[in-house]
């Protein structure tokens, strides 16, 4: 589904990604872990198309398309979804209107008819249950005055609505208490199928207790320095990141 080859990117003069190689197939969950400043969130942002970053080298193929050539909205329409680490507050735009616009833009791109009000509402109600989010929250201005947990739940609600092929969760666990974490993770798990894939970017192992990865990759200084199964995450939790840093230094 996604093939990243030697991806390098910088922000301003600062090189952050130093050659990432990664392959994600349909049905898989990949966790990207690593110490602060290793480039985890940059990787997520580059895939979603954030313009602050300049890709200096490498290729990203997503379902046969050159992802790096696409505008952010076209990436979303092709099936990429990033759950933001810091969801933006937008006064005056309700989540409901926002989602209706987004969904119909995506449907239009795919040559489908716009959803009428009734079908949209029906779909929304169904997805609301999945992430245990209240309709009153969705009628309010997007993320405005939401708690940390409500913002993250809203991200997963959007993911449920847009049914992406590849979801990238950027530090979705940050700022969540254990109950909110469970709700968010349950939502993600219910959305998993054999046809879609998830990349979980996280600093801590605890989210991976709920969203169990098939592969764990450790990012350090802009490179994947170690890959393994879910047991690698547990090892990191027990031993910290220092041994990885030492290994990388030796190599």
């Amino acid at each position, binding site marked *: 589904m996604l093939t990243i080859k030697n991806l390098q990117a910088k922000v301003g003069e600062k090189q952050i990604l130093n050659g990432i190689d990664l392959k994600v197939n349909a049905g898989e969950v990949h966790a990207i872990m690593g110490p602060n400043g290793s480039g985890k969130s940059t990787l997520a942002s580059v895939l979603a198309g954030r313009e602050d970053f300049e890709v200096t080298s490498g290729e990203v193929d997503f379902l046969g398309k050159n992802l790096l050539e696409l505008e952010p*909205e076209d990436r*979303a329409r092709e099936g990429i979804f990033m759950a933001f680490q810091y969801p933006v507050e937008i006064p005056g735009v309700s989540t409901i209107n926002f989602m*209706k616009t987004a969904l119909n833009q995506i449907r239009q791109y795919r040559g489908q008819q716009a959803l009428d009000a009734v079908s949209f509402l029906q779909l929304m109600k169904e997805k609301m249950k999945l992430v245990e989010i209240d309709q009153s929250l969705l009628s309010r201005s997007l993320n405005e005055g939401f708690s940390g947990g409500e913002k993250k739940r809203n991200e997963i609600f959007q993911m449920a609505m847009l049914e992406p092929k590849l979801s990238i969760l950027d530090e979705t666990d940050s700022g969540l208490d254990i109950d909110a974490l469970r709700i968010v993770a349950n939502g993600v798990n219910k959305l998993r199928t054999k046809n879609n894939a998830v990349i979980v970017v996280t600093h801590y192992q605890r989210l991976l207790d709920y969203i169990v990865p098939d592969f764990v990759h450790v990012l350090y200084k802009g490179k994947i320095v170690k890959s393994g199964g879910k047991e690698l995450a547990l090892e990191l939790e027990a031993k910290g990141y220092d041994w990885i840093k030492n290994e990388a230094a030796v190599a």
Partner: protein
Amino acid sequence: MKPLLPDMSTPITRDINNEIAESFHQSKFDVANDYRKSAFAFFEKTGLPTAKQEEYRFTPISKGLEKNFTWDSKESTSSINSIDAFLIPNLDANILVFINGRYSESFSKIISPESEVRINTLSEAFRSDSSLVSSYLDKVLHPEKDPFTAMNSAFWQEGLFIHVPENSNVSKPVFILHLNDAGEGQVISQTKVLGILEKGSQLSVVEKFNSIGLNPVFHNFSEEWIVKEKSHLEYCKIQNDTGKSYQVTNTVIHQSDNSLLNTFTLTLNGQLVRNNLGIVIDGKQCESHFYGLYLVNGNTLADNHTVVDHKKPNSFSNEMYKGIMDGNSKGVFNGKIFVRPHAQKTNAFQSNRNILVSDSASINTKPQLEIWADDVKCSHGCTSGQLDDEAMFYLRSRGIAAPIAKAMLLYAFASEVLAPIQNETLKLYLDNLIAERLHKNF
């Protein structure tokens, strides 16, 4: 011989001031000749404002008038035969229509009974009710302080006198349409409104300014609203003129004890629009909300000068003006708040927020607070900037095309100012105007 270059150091308004004077002396007025003469004396003292005057620094109105208009006492004709396109759909209202500064009996329609509200033309009121009119006219507007006010009081072609008796709740709004038709030549129109809300009364007013035709239009408008004890005025101004229109409006609203005021000013079009809005809070426990939105593009210059004068204690004023400037448009905002020594326990808030959509658009904003009382709560803030990149990215990352994302954000920013508008029909109309301007299509 080389042609003489004009001397740039002399005020550019020299010639036009003479022309205006000549025009005044040649005009034959039906009513209020003495009143006009004394007002014109004030105008002659200063003439039109030059760019050197602080109040008109960013707004070269005199230059525009000199360049585009000839001043004779001739009035322009109009062949307009329907005003439907300029009405607010489904607004059940008293309709008062001015075409090129003259009251149009045939297009106007008064539906409220006289026991609720008395509406006359100003010249009619001058004849039938001269002592009442004279005791209010120009008492809160000051022709000696602003040349356009003086000019208006001297030249006004026609106007309205609106009188709401004590405890009358006027159930239908008063809709005033100022239509200028420059199809057959330039138009200079000068109109005037005097409104009095007696104790405990309630009125909603909508003023709409439109122009058609390709020739230049200058509209000089003045009005005074006297809002007495426990009265409530809703006031909305919609300025949607064509590209060659120059407009100056001077509005002063005077509030007495326990009165309530909501104003909203929407500026969408025109070459140059200058609004002077003054609120005199001359009473205790008053509440005043005044909101404004200038949504301009092309070469439009929209200038809002507002003054809130807190003269008595325990009142509350809240001002919020927002601007979106596209193309080569310019915005000017100046907000003065005065809190006089007696006006203790005043709460006065002001905010002015601006978004520049294009690189060649500009905004000049200046809050001015002068506070002489010591026990008050006042705040002000102004911001100018571009659309938030992070918000744009957020919307786009969900599949929304950039132009639609932009429209969504601008619409959300702009529509906040509609919050205080009570009349749902009016609100829907304004909402549609804003949506249409911002190409909202979602």
